[in-house]
């Protein structure tokens, strides 16, 4: 596609439920990244994919967070047993190499 597409754009979920966030990167971009941004805070790195493999998962905050990427394209970030501190904007970016990321508009997650 022309840009990075994320869905849903907004998600309100009850504490303890699982959520799945989707990212559709730019076609041909082999690198894909997930970040999250809490209100008034900077971007916090979560995970990096090169193709279908994730050489860097160091930013995942707990084992409730997982991500996968299939076919070198779409990625899903799953948060299990959501907590209120998980509320944030989750941003996905892709790039052809490690420079000049293209970001999506994000998914605003609210855990109530």
């Amino acid at each position, binding site marked *: 596609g022309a840009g990075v597409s994320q869905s849903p754009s907004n998600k309100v979920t009850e504490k303890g439920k699982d959520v799945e966030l989707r990212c559709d990167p730019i076609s041909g971009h082999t690198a894909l990244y997930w970040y999250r941004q809490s209100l008034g805070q900077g971007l916090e790195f979560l995970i990096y994919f*090169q193709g279908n493999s994730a050489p860097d998962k160091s930013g995942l905050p707990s084992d409730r967070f997982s991500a996968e990427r299939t076919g070198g394209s779409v990625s899903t970030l799953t948060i299990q047993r959501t907590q209120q501190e998980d509320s944030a904007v989750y941003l996905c970016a892709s790039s052809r190499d490690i420079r*000049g990321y*293209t970001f999506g508009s994000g998914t605003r997650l609210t855990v109530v």
Partner: protein
Amino acid sequence: SQKIEQNSEALNIQEGKTATLTCNYTNYSPAYLQWYRQDPGRGPVFLLLIRENEKEKRKERLKVTFDTTLKQSLFHITASQPADSATYLCALEGPGYALNFGKGTSLLVTP
């Protein structure tokens, strides 16, 4: 630990003036540095990349300098316009290939 520091105070300037934003870093040996713009409710947008062997880079009204001795980058917007109002982020490659971002500086250009 690695740190990227940007002025947390918002920068307010008058239209037509030059805006200068600062990015300082510690415990990085970057091959390059990037600047992004973020508008409310949107993801960051890539503006410029400057390599360690480049002292200065320009793109239209934007100018970036990179001093690896001072561990600092300066981002200038000349002839600023209200449409330039946004948060500007600098970014460096972290230890695991992904970029680490500063918290950004908010710029407000008033007519």
